[in-house]
């Protein structure tokens, strides 16, 4: 029994396959197969540019035009994707979670608890749930604060929240606070978080 093949096939392949089935294929079947959840592509998500995106274009017309041109679903899609890329590259998701649990009074603090459907889209592939909250959860960030707050906060968090330990992202903004392309994208992405929850017909 205590030979090569036992450990290669039974332990190595067999035990892995069992776990793979139970903790991956089963949840996949529950979530995708039987509940018929629809997957939203980037085009679906960006159909209607958000009010916050429109407002950015009105407040910084020249800088916005240089970065994204006109407000339409293509430029909105580009901003969302770039915003997510910056968010991932800066490892924002290691200090901010993106899901609200049903426990610990989280629904009172952040907003309604997360559903499975709201993550079934291109901007959650891979998901950005995170495992640590140094800063608060961002899963219900949409519309909570104005664009100006986000811009001021990203430039220097301590100016807005004096005790914050968040790093400054001033390199995404010009001297006078006008966002550069990444700045626009990041604010657009942050103001998007929670949109798919509302689209399910829920109210935050």
């Amino acid at each position: 029994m205590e030979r090569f093949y036992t450990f290669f096939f039974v332990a190595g392949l067999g035990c892995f396959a069992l776990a793979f089935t139970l903790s991956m294929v089963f949840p996949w079947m529950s979530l995708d197969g039987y509940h018929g959840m629809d997957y939203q592509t980037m085009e679906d998500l960006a159909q209607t540019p958000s009010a916050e995106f429109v407002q950015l274009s009105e407040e910084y017309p020249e800088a916005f035009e240089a970065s994204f041109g006109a407000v339409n679903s293509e430029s909105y899609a580009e901003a969302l994707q770039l915003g997510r890329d910056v968010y991932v590259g800066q490892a924002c998701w290691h200090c901010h979670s993106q899901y609200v649990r049903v426990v610990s009074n989280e629904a009172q603090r952040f907003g309604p608890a997360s559903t499975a459907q709201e993550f079934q889209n291109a901007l959650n592939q891979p998901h950005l749930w995170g495992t640590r909250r140094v800063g608060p959860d961002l899963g219900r960030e949409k519309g909570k604060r104005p664009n100006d707050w986000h811009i001021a906060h990203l430039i220097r968090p301590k100016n807005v929240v004096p005790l914050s330990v968040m790093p400054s992202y001033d390199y995404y903004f010009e001297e006078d606070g006008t966002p550069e392309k990444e700045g626009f994208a990041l604010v657009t992405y942050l103001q998007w978080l929670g949109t798919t929850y509302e689209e399910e017909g829920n109210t935050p």
Partner: protein
Amino acid sequence: MHAATLTPSEDGKSLVNYRLVKLHLTAAGIALLLSMTAGFLYSLQFLGFYPFGQEWLAAGRVRLIHTNLAAYGWLVNGFTAMLYYAIPRLTGKRVWSDSIGNLIFATWQFILLAAGAGFLLGKAQAIEWGETPTGFRPGTFELNWIPVDALIVVGAVLVIIQFMVPLYNARKTKFYVSLWYFTAGLVWLALTYLMGNIIPEWILPGAAGAAVTGLFIHDLVGLYVTPMGWGLMYFFVPLILRKPIWSHSLSVIGFWALAFFYPLGGVHHFLLSPIPDYVEYGAITTTIAIEVVVTTVVVNFFMTLRGRWDALRTSMAIRWFYAGAIMYFITCFQCAFQVTWMFQKIIHFTDWVVGHAHLIMFGTFTFWMFGVIDWLWPRICRRNWASQSLRSWHFWLSVLGVSIMFFDLMIAGLIAGFMQKDLNHWMEIVSSSVPFWWVRTVSGGMLLTGMLCMLYNMYATAKSNEIYVEEDNMAPLQEGA
């Protein structure tokens, strides 16, 4: 110890390629230096003293260097060195090829450089413990960086063949416990990496993808690092103590419990989430089950030490191994509680988890690799350790440092967790954590100092003139000798 250990290689060449062992250990040491420096710098962000303001040195990116170099730079290089030493000696067969060994070494260090540079340029992938860049713009097949993930697969496959060849060539012999762990662990490494980096990135979004990333975080530690760790314990402890492991039955239980239960617990990284509850129940139950059975392995090792407690004084390697085993038991004990929903409500998302991760990754597996280095380095360099006091400093700074860090972060996590539940203002929670973050940085500084003692000692030993006289550790081992 099994008789296969004593078989010389057929062609008269040295069974072990010491050059590759030394190369990988050196690379591991450098990776550890960079990783711990990055971790220390990152901890300064929490105190408001982070020194860099440039985009490419942003604190979040430096954090990725810390975690990924710890896993892929330090532990993978270290374990590879250990396998180059242990597998040929346990099977009596040489590895596949020495020149492939050079290729693996070069490929792996290139991977680390490409991944590190990728992090600094913001090309990370959104998979925890697998942030190594895919090299593709998300959702497309346009290259935007070196495809590190694909290179890791190539490197890992080469590593696996390199070591599977001697294992396969010894298929007619009865395997010693270490080889059970090494064989299965190498298979798991490939499967785990492929699963975790491909499925959530390209196939499954959202909650179903989260079940996979949870499994990936879990399996990388449980199905690669843990088998390599226990494999090396089963190899080095009897070798140094010159007596067999106490109970073969307990070894069997420990191995098969790990193989069966461990991979079933992956979803416990995302409890109380939109992942279906029945999957979470399964993960919780199996996690508690494995902690119970893992205790048998710890018992087995402490019973082996019975009658040889003097080794804790006389052998620095044994001291590292058993300090690590105690930390392992504490981590597992903690795990059996923290995996329940009752604890999760409070401690998930807090520093408790950070403390837990450091205790297992540093307090256990890094300690065990320190033990391997302590035993192996003089034998590879054929020089005596240059400084005895630096060895002691390294040990005590590490033990104290990681213990302080663990208790500090555990308390910080409990406080922050209860304050979150009690709806305190968020900034109150942050400010209540600051004193604990100071202690964390200081304890991290202790770990860093200890590690610098080791690296300097390794360097001084390699350069010294004091020849190490090889003790006859290939001679048959007698029970109770």
